[in-house]
């Protein structure tokens, strides 16, 4: 059932600046032929005061990981440590973490301020402290005027803020957020993204944020863990995740990207069959002639007139987006690529469908992805 690593003789430990340490955590739902491995041997250290995002498509295990940290699910194996303390034996109500639920899960039979003070009451805090903290929280989320409204009498955006205030009021060590913005419309979502980031900076609480929205992840996070199939594929800052994806999935899931099948030629050279050579700064230990995939962001491709030293292509489509233009072009082997060019000036360089072009990419902008066996 619950085999923590401790039972294997290996001591559980975590670094001092680590808020949540996830150790070889697995979760299997169901049994036998219907068993589903939602989380597969995941380990991660989430640092104190960090805005940490779990990003991935639905069913990737991100919500399961969150629920395991909160204690709503029991792990099949592995452990969760909070400030170095193993949480395995603790029910949710003994864990100093709070959750902002996807649908908010606000208590419909209570007012806004009763919802916010619920956690403090359950912790048995003195009455005057409950009162003052609740007032502080109402101010923090700018809902002073709504204190005595019922939950059904306020808007979705306001409910969202009540859910946040309710979870922040007990001053948890870690705040877990399960796609809290997904029910809001775009405008409100953008506002709440900034609001959430502000709250995290103001309170200094560690945020673990679950989302499938790459835009949300990139704009708000200090670090992102990209998940798929119950595994964490890559952890890094938004910039690292975007600029240096290490997996084909990560590259494809975040932003637009061109993927080019290539072969290693040694010394940072890669050959694209029938097209030419590209250089990459990515250090690769792969043997020569190994199959790899090169990943290049569309905005990193420079287009010009065909010339020596540039790779050839033919423009197949031009899509104007206002701030920028996307040029689709075909390579000799039939592969279609996209280049994004900012419309910096009114007479920004333009190409028309059918034009022969030359293209190049700086070696620092080419990521080398090992071809996943999967």
């Amino acid at each position: 059932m619950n085999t923590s690593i401790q039972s294997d003789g290996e001591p559980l430990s975590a670094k001092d600046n680590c808020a949540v340490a996830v150790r070889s955590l697995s979760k299997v739902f169901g049994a036998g032929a219907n068993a589903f491995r939602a989380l597969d041997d995941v380990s991660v250290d989430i640092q104190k005061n960090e805005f940490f995002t779990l990003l991935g498509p639905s069913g990737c295990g991100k919500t399961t990981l969150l629920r395991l940290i909160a204690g709503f699910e029991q792990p099949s194996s592995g452990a969760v440590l909070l400030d170095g303390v193993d949480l395995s034996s603790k029910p949710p109500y003994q864990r100093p973490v709070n959750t902002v639920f996807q649908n908010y899960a606000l208590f419909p039979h209570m007012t806004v301020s009763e919802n916010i003070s619920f956690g403090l009451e359950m912790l048995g805090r003195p009455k005057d402290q409950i009162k003052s903290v609740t007032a502080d929280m109402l101010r923090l989320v700018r809902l002073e005027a709504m204190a005595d409204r019922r939950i059904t009498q306020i808007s979705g955006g306001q409910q969202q803020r009540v859910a946040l205030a309710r979870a922040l009021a007990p001053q948890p060590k870690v705040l877990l957020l399960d796609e809290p913005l997904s029910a809001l419309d775009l405008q409100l979502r953008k506002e709440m993204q900034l609001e959430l980031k502000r709250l995290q900076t103001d309170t200094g609480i560690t945020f673990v944020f679950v989302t499938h929205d790459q835009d949300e992840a990139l704009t708000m996070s200090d670090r992102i863990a990209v998940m798929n199939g119950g595994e964490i594929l890559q952890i890094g800052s938004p910039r690292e995740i975007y600029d240096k994806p290490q997996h084909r999935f990560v590259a494809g899931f975040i932003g637009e990207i061109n993927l080019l099948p290539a072969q290693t030629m040694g010394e940072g050279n890669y050959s694209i069959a029938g097209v030419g050579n590209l250089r990459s700064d990515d250090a690769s230990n792969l043997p020569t002639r190994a199959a790899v995939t090169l990943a290049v962001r569309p905005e990193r491709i420079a287009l010009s007139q065909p010339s020596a030293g540039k790779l050839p292509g033919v423009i197949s489509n031009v899509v104007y987006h206002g701030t920028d233009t996307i040029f689709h072009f075909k390579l000799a082997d039939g592969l279609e690529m996209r280049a994004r060019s900012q419309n910096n000036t009114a007479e920004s360089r333009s190409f028309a469908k059918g034009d022969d072009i030359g293209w190049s990419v700086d070696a620092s902008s080419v990521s080398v992805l090992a071809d996943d066996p999967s």
Partner: protein
Amino acid sequence: MTRAGKNTLFRALLIGPALLAITCFMIVPLGLMAYISFRGRDYSGGVLWDQFSTEAYVRLFFERELDGTLALNLNYMFIILRSVWLSFLTMVISLAVGLPVAMFMATRDRKWKAVLVFMVTLPFWTNLLVRNYAWILLLRDHGTINSTLMWLGIISEPLPLLHNAFAVAVGLTYSFLPFMVLPIYSSLEKMDFRLVEASFDLYANRWQTIRRVILPLAFPGIVAGCVLVFVPALGAYITPELLGGGKTLMIGNLIGFQFGGARNWPFGAALGLFLLALVLISLGLYARRYRGELEGSQ
């Protein structure tokens, strides 16, 4: 005819059947009962239709001596009090048993829920009379329970389980338990169980979660269940008749007796109206007491 006039006629035609049904089946019988309750009674037991009399109501509290003076007689009030007490007890036991059952049912899978609801309603498939006779077989001196306990050597003499208030309370609880379980189940079933997780997340333990989150949300169901158990239990006839063995009379039996063996229709009607008043007053008090909670949990 004006347009408004046509509309009024149309509405009258639409609502007519319902009004007719209510008039025929509720207002007329009640009115008749009220009328009879204020009539005199001749010595052979017939109703004196042309004589106004409050004798039936006087009889609720007093006994007329041979010389015509009134003496306080609270025997009928005792029976009414016992009825209220037994119904209240039935309601409390049903709530204590029904709430966990409803909670269990509401937290099962969809497939299991259907099976469990079916099982709760299963007793309705057989006649109430038959089911009460079954309890006689269980509770009597040489019935299943006593003979099992004696066989196990726990008791040497049969326990007096039948023909007392205990037997009536057991029978009433058994008969009306589904009326408690189903409304509570339906209010819990609508409940979002993520609220329970939210409560756990906010440091409420199991007991606090039940008291602060689940019970308030189940409240409309609990109120409905209590009314649905208390009211019919108060007027119960078959169960006290069979399981009370004529010794533990309830108001329903008393009323039945007045219309039957005692041949005193005015008194029976007065008892019936008294029971009605009792129910209306207790429902009114109940609604007043819990109005806030009921509106709050909508």
